[in-house]
């Protein structure tokens, strides 16, 4: 019995060995690390749709210089440990030089040093400010939390709300944006009355809301994901809290409308410039294609990974499958017309994108036209 097990173990190791030495085919292999399972699986699914749409599009037009693109997806389950495993496999087994993803900042921070070391270009959709300094090869097509937090602070000041409560999810995203907002907002004379948190996955927000209600804020700034915020919005209205609801892009998602229904109407949130109903022809074409393939309008995460993939393909086409050249090319990229907005990268590899304000109208997420 024991010997048998040992044999099995050895066999598995051997199989790895064989696979690692297998010959790469005549395609450009791109890696993708996404949370395909676990808490953030939904984001992973959206990201995957964007990538596959872009790849299909490129390949149907004959690929890059005649070579097709193949994407190897790996699941990180939103856990850093699994992300590290995945990135090691992608770099060493699949020999990819370019990786799209990950989405959670914790995973990006864990895999960044590995990519930096291996000189593999990575384009994440994470928001943590810490990623700014993660390395030369580390890019992101998603604005840093600093961006959204300060944009909202400015907006609130402009709207003349002076007393705001914050209710954020208790993770790095929630804490990060809330802190940026608080700093900016206070600097400009606003007052954060109370900051409350909740655990991811929780659905009873009443205790927090009752506490907030006591302070009678003019607006409540929600930082978190669609699901939890759906409960927040619904329960806030049920508790007869009438304050203006503000949010971040995390709030955008079907769960918000599912859960909160009508009570979500009129909330205001920041988002990277992506307007699903834009009349811009590129966006329109993208939306049509997306609708055809997945039967619904594109989520913003799909748009960013779509753009990321297209940008990478563009670079490979220009400079060949050479990470150093791709990296340099990305720093020099100017005003790429992505579906998620005009795209530039600063010298830290952070995307420079305009932030737009959106609202919920008739159960749709729409830009606020000022």
């Amino acid at each position: 019995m024991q010997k048998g097990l040992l044999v099995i173990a050895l066999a598995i190791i051997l199989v790895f060995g064989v696979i690692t030495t297998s010959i790469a085919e005549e395609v450009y292999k791109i890696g993708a690390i996404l949370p395909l399972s676990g808490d953030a699986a939904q984001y992973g699914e959206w990201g995957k749709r964007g990538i596959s749409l872009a790849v299909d599009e490129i390949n149907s037009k004959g690929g890059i210089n005649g070579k097709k693109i193949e994407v190897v997806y790996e699941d990180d389950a939103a856990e850093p440990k699994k992300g590290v495993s995945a990135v090691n496999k992608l770099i060493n087994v699949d020999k990819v030089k370019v990786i799209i993803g990950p989405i959670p900042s914790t995973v990006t921070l864990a895999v960044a040093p590995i990519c930096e070391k291996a000189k593999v270009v990575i384009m994440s959709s994470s928001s943590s400010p810490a990623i700014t300094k993660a390395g030369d090869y580390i890019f992101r097509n998603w604005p840093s939390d600093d961006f959204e937090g300060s944009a909202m602070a400015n907006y609130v000041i402009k709207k003349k709300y002076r007393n705001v409560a914050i209710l954020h999810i208790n993770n790095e995203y929630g804490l990060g944006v809330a802190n940026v907002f608080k700093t900016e907002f206070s600097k400009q004379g606003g007052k954060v009355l109370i900051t409350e948190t909740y655990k991811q996955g929780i659905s009873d927000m009443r205790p927090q809301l009752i506490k907030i209600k006591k302070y009678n804020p003019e607006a409540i700034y929600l930082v978190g994901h669609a699901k939890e915020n759906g409960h927040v919005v619904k329960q806030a209205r049920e508790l007869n809290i009438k304050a203006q609801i503000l949010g971040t892009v995390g709030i955008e998602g079907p769960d918000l409308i599912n859960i909160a229904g009508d009570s979500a109407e009129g909330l205001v949130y920041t988002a990277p410039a992506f307007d699903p109903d834009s009349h811009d022809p590129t966006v329109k074409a993208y939306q049509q294609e997306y609708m055809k393939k997945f039967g619904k309008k594109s989520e913003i995460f799909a748009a960013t990974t779509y753009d990321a993939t297209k940008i990478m393909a563009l670079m490979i086409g220009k400079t060949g499958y050479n990470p150093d050249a791709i990296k340099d090319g990305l720093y020099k990229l100017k005003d790429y017309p992505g579906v998620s907005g005009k795209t530039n990268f600063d010298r830290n590899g952070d995307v420079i994108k305009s932030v737009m304000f959106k609202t919920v109208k008739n159960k749709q997420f729409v830009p606020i036209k000022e």
Partner: protein
Amino acid sequence: MLLQFIVNGIVSGSLIAIMAIGFWFIYRATNLFHIAHGAVYTASAYVFYSLYVSKDISLSIALVLSLISSIIFGLVMYFIVYRPLEKKNASAGIKFISSLAIYIFMVNIIALIFGNETKILSEGLSESLSFGNIILTWIQVYQFLSFLILFILTYSFVQGTKSGRAIRAIGDNPVLFKAIGLNERWVKGMVFAIGSAIAGLASILTGIDVGIDPHIGMLALLNAVVAVIIGGIKKIEGIIIGSLLIGILQNLVIWQFSARWESAVTFFILILVLLYKSGGLFVVKKRVEEI
């Protein structure tokens, strides 16, 4: 302010209590630490979802059907997994791990079928009631009332009927129970059926308020377990008080401190009770030779 928190705590406590009563039925009679009870909880809410929301079957029929399904889940778990282990005289640890494995199994099946997103059982806002400064939604009122009714039913069932007495008796002394010719298999099947149905009720009541996803079961179960341990396994009144205490306490922690310390406080109290009052806070003093 304080009052609103306490009222809120009582409502969330009564949801914990419903789950705890279900868990208690099973634990009392079989001494099984039924982690997979959390999976029954989740599964029955999904059955309800697919009947009531997806298939548009009327509320009462959907409710009855999903409670029946939860009974089936519970019975299948007992007879396929636990009973053979009982027959082999497996240790508590083995049953615990098996139960955990059933939980993982069920939750992943559910995630596979329905996906990870939240499903909504009822749309729109629930109407609110105000009593002075205190605001409650109708669903919260229903939740509390269901708890009251369930408690009264359970109490009279356990104290006043043959089957109820059998549950206490088998937990008290399983060997004697068999020796006086009573049907052990039947009673254990019965507690799994009742307990599972109650879990189903708990999840639907919660789900109607806040929606469901595949991972709701564990939290509900852990709260119930803490309530049962704190209240003491012997008496149903004890676990009710335990549940309400937990519910109120969790609300007060959020009020006075922050939600981030909620679970730490809950589990700290669990450890204290385990260490210094392992029979629970509300339990009759025993003579040494009874134990």
